[in-house]
């Protein structure tokens, strides 16, 4: 939304310096994108008159002109040979800036006196583009004949002004601020003054007398639900010509291209009031249509499938039954509120016009504009909800200007289809509640002054309440809280004295998973791994590469690209390429981990939403050659993550447990792991993680060395089990014994079975003991056996064991091991 300080001053009573406008808008209305002080841009540029014209001796395309600039004549070479003696131009003397270059990316260009192919050029004659007034760069910009020679160009062209661009985002719910008048109203109130809308807005004169032959015009609204108001009038005797300089200048400053007087009038009023207007060529409609009796029928209706319209943008638009159109008796002549039709547009030959001032449903315009891909100023305004009450004032003002600037005469009644005007809404404000809500202590008077300054009407009040009538244009005001915002804004957020809340002292609730994640992050980064964050989106190909099923992945309806169209079902999937990238960078020994949520389709939580569980997943890669499985490195990390809960976790070889109780997530994940060198981690009967080596094809795919291991642990499941606080056992006061035991067992007996059994024996009947594995040996010649050496430390709670008793204990242990597992103690 662009405004100029001069227009704001024209409509508002703003007690502030021009230079303060930006700050006031930022602090009280919405963010400002930029401010341009135009007066500086045109310094030194004066109006000149061509008094002599010569051919350039050395260049065909250049003209040499003598320009009179009030006090002297000077010579300028220009790339435009079409200038005639007597033409008025904008002369840029040496030392002045080219206004356009202020806004281009490069440094502003300063004019210098130069020789152009041997002819001296003392300055420049500006084109429309160089003067930043429009796009034309082919010709020197010509000024009207009455332009005063020698006067500053900026004064004649009303360019001593400042342009302020306000961010539309902050105005999303404020359709009324898409007109300069709305911003002027706010600034008036912000600076403590009362805003008064002009009479032509508050009390528009509807009864107008036809001043010439009546033109036949009928309006039929078949889309009342989406077009609450439609007003039209016919105007005759139009004389199309360029607008006067003041109007062109206003439009240029507002970044609207001047076209001709009629179109400029509609655009100007639209900019001031925020109410878009449209002008149709009456005769073009008559000649294109097959309506009887030389009558123009304006029909507001929904489009029809198959209908098309050539827009003012010179594009053919396909219409449908969800788009409101303005049609004549047979075809659409405009897409309502969005764009006019070329075939009924006003041009140089136009003599009679119809002016439309209407209100359309914001949602309908928003959708149509989006579906058709047409983004016009008019559509932007309608999208933000406009006030049907503004239709009439806008039309009246347009008629007045059409008479003044285009010699038009009224040729019909005002036809106003407005079946259901809404009464003004009333809202009661509780003064005390307002002050509690804002943390202020504003008196009723202060509040009521702010509101009346914004043209709310106070209808009744007592000590504690204030009832106000909401202005018709404030579509955003529905609740008392909306009015609180107006008070806070106008009073000034920064004038509110801040104060910390008075809060009850109470402990917060635990968030165990958040804390576990934090702990895991600290732990793994301390143990040499690097935390990464990768995208949740991934390509369909990635699933094949990592043995996963893309059918289990959530698919995006509107992905950024096909490579980012699915959601990962496993964190390892997105860690894998990152391991490869870092290896390519030259890193060889490292581990990456991510703590995040993988998403698998088909699982829902108690809210009926996709189940979300936190996982920690990691890949560790190493160049160190080893014939031993890297499973054991991953296991070491996993046990560190399980920490005190490790005692509840059982590791089970995938190849030997794949038929057991395995959830679908683990079933899918196990396809990434080599089943003979990887394990499920069971907590009770549930798999909470997978640890081990990745399958060969995955390693090949990502060019990872054999010495790579990975784990994927469900932290949400881990956290849901809690260990009771452990209780003290008797502390022995007698010395410990320590012996090393070498056991020979069959290969198929699991290490943990032996160790658990040992511990059980050691910790029974008044004795205690710990084991430590010193070695596991397998002789290639006896591959069906293995030898495990344990160091056993222990003791009795009630006495010191003698050497003899220790021997007896060992023999007891070996007997029990033998009878249980057939193990021999060597």
């Amino acid at each position, binding site marked *: 939304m662009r405004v100029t300080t001069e227009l704001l001053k024209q409509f508002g009573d703003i007690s502030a310096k021009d230079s303060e406008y930006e700050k006031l808008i930022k602090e009280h209305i919405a963010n400002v994108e930029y401010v341009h002080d135009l007066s500086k841009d045109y310094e030194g540029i004066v109006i000149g008159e061509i008094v002599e014209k010569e051919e350039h001796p050395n260049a065909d395309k250049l003209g040499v002109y003598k320009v009179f600039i009030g006090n002297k004549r000077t010579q300028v070479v220009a790339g435009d040979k079409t200038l005639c003696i007597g033409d008025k131009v904008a002369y840029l003397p040496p030392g002045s800036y080219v206004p356009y270059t202020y806004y281009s990316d490069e440094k502003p260009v300063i004019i210098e006196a130069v020789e152009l192919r041997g002819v001296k050029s003392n300055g420049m004659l500006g084109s429309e583009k160089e003067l930043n007034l429009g796009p034309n760069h082919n010709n020197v910009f010509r000024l009207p004949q009455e332009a005063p020679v020698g006067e500053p160009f900026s004064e004649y062209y009303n360019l001593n002004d400042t342009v302020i661009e306000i961010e539309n985002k902050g105005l999303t719910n404020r359709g009324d601020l898409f007109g300069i008048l709305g911003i002027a109203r706010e600034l008036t109130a912000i600076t403590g003054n009362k805003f008064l809308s002009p009479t032509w807005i508050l009390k528009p004169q509807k009864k107008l007398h036809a001043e010439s032959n009546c033109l036949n015009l009928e309006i039929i609204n078949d889309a009342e639900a989406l077009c609450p108001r439609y007003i039209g009038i016919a105007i005759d005797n139009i004389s199309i010509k360029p607008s006067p300089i003041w109007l062109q200048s206003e439009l240029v400053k507002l970044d609207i291209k001047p076209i001709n007087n009629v179109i400029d009038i509609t655009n100007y009023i639209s900019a001031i009031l925020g109410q878009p207007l449209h002008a149709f060529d009456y005769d073009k409609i008559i000649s294109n249509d097959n309506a009887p009796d030389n009558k123009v029928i304006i029909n507001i209706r929904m489009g029809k499938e198959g209908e098309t319209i050539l827009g003012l943008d010179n594009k053919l638009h396909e219409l449908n039954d969800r788009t409101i159109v303005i049609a004549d008796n047979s075809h659409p002549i405009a897409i309502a509120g969005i764009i006019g039709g070329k075939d009924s547009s006003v041009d140089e030959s136009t003599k009679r016009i119809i002016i439309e001032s209407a209100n359309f449903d914001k949602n309908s315009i928003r959708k149509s504009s989006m579906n058709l891909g047409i983004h016009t100023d008019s559509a932007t305004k309608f999208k933000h909800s406009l006030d049907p009450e503004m239709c009439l004032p806008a039309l009246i003002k347009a008629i007045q200007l059409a008479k003044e600037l285009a010699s038009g005469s009224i040729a019909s009644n005002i036809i106003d289809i407005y079946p259901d005007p809404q009464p003004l809404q009333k809202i009661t404000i509780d003064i005390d509640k307002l002050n509690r809500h804002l943390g202020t202590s504003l008196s009723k008077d202060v509040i009521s002054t702010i509101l009346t300054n914004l043209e709310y009407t106070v209808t009744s009040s007592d000590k504690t309440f204030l009832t106000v009538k909401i202005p018709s244009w404030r579509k955003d005001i529905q609740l008392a809280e909306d009015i609180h915002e107006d008070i806070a804004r106008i009073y000034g*957020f920064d004038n509110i004295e*801040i104060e*910390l809340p008075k*809060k009850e*002292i109470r402990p917060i609730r635990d968030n165990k998973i958040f804390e576990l994640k934090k702990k895991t992050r600290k732990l793994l980064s301390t143990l040499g791994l690097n935390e990464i964050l990768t995208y949740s*989106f991934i390509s369909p190909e990635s699933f094949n590469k990592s043995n996963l099923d893309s059918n289990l992945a959530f698919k995006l309806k509107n992905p950024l690209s096909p490579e980012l169209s699915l959601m990962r079902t496993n964190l390892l999937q997105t860690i894998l390429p990152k391991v490869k990238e870092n290896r390519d960078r030259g890193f060889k020994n490292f581990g990456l981990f991510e703590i995040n949520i993988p998403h698998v389709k088909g699982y829902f939580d108690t809210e009926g939403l996709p189940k979300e569980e936190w996982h920690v997943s990691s890949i560790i890669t190493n160049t160190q050659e*080893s014939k031993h499985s890297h499973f054991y490195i991953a296991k070491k990390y996993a046990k560190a993550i399980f920490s005190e809960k490790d005692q509840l976790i059982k590791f089970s070889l995938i190849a030997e447990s794949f038929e057991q109780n395995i959830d679908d997530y683990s079933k899918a994940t196990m396809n990434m792991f080599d089943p003979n060198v990887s394990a499920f981690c069971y907590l009770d009967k549930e798999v909470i993680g997978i640890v081990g080596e990745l399958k060969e*094809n995955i390693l090949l795919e990502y060019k990872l060395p054999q010495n790579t291991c990975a784990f994927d642990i469900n932290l949400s499941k881990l956290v849901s089990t809690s260990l009771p606080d452990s209780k003290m056992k008797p502390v022995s006061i007698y010395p410990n014994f320590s012996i090393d035991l070498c056991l020979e067992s069959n290969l198929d007996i699991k290490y943990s079975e032996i160790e658990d059994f040992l511990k059980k024996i050691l910790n029974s009947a008044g004795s205690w003991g710990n084991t430590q594995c010193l070695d596991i040996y397998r002789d290639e010649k006896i591959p069906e056996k293995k030898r495990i050496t344990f160091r056993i430390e222990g003791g009795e709670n009630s006495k010191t064991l003698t050497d003899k008793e220790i021997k007896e204990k060992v023999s007891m242990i070996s007997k029990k091991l033998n009878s249980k597992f057939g193990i021999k103690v060597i």
Partner: protein
Amino acid sequence: MEFKQKNLQKIYKELLQDQKKLSLQGLKKKYISKQGFISEAFNKISSIKIAERAEYGKEANELKNLYEEISQSLSQNKNIYSTREKIDVTAPFDFNTKEEQRPHFLNEIGTQHPLTKEVEIFTEIFKSMGFNVLESRQIDDDYHMFESLNFPVGHPAREMYDTFWTEDGFVLPAHTSTMQNRAMRMYGPPPIAVVLPGRCFRNEATDASHEFTFHQIEGIYIDKNVSLANMVATIKEFLEKYLETSLEVRIQPSYFPFTEPDCEFVISCPFCHKAGCSTCGHSGWIELMGCGMIHPNVLKQADIDPDTYSGFAWGFGVDRLTMIKRGINDIRLLRDSNLNFLKQF
């Protein structure tokens, strides 16, 4: 190589051996890819002498049948298929592992990601101020993302959020506000004080300062008599603790459907103290976050009576603050997992 029956028999034997050694993919490559043994065998059929051709064809077919049999049985057992010898996963290390080769943690210096570090710092401060912590979902529904936040269907402000949708109609949160309603229900009735960190997504092109994946932290505080003055003071208190400096703050109007009034929280630049520097774009001020008083409709959606209670909410981007604090000039580095970057933190 000239293909004869002798070759076929050799291949047959090799295949029988390979089924124990090679993965399904390896077998595919070796036997039925374009230059695979079996493909070659069939390609060469025309070069075989006519007299031998019938016999050759028969054996080639047998070879092919064997391959199919093996590949079928392998793919059925794909999950458990392995060429490796089984290990005892309950042991602390493998057989015959020498002492110095026993499994150990990496002898490297690890790192925590700068973003998660920052999230932890933020939540720690808010916890010390009495705020609970609840993390945001990563897939949510329309109700939480929009409707419960006073964006009814068709609300134009929905367009301000370039939201990703899944094909089954779920929404990927474009802001952590998606947790507001849930947090109010979980921690209600008031007083309610919760911070809500989380990963968010927006469907926008990526460049040095825009990411389609980013982190936000939302906060809500609801009680009797909670005011806008309380909001400004609370956020200021947090920021001064975080930035370890005293700040000047400004509040500017903004627009969010779920707050009324809606504000933008602006602080004096903590790096140049308003002198103007590159971090604040030489303005001396930094727009840090959106905030506002929770809209009565949002409270009602969580069955909280707006006539009795009021509250405030705020939300800010973790990425941007981390970048400002660490001097990171390209947001894409945060999710690139480049160890040259990560090892700096």
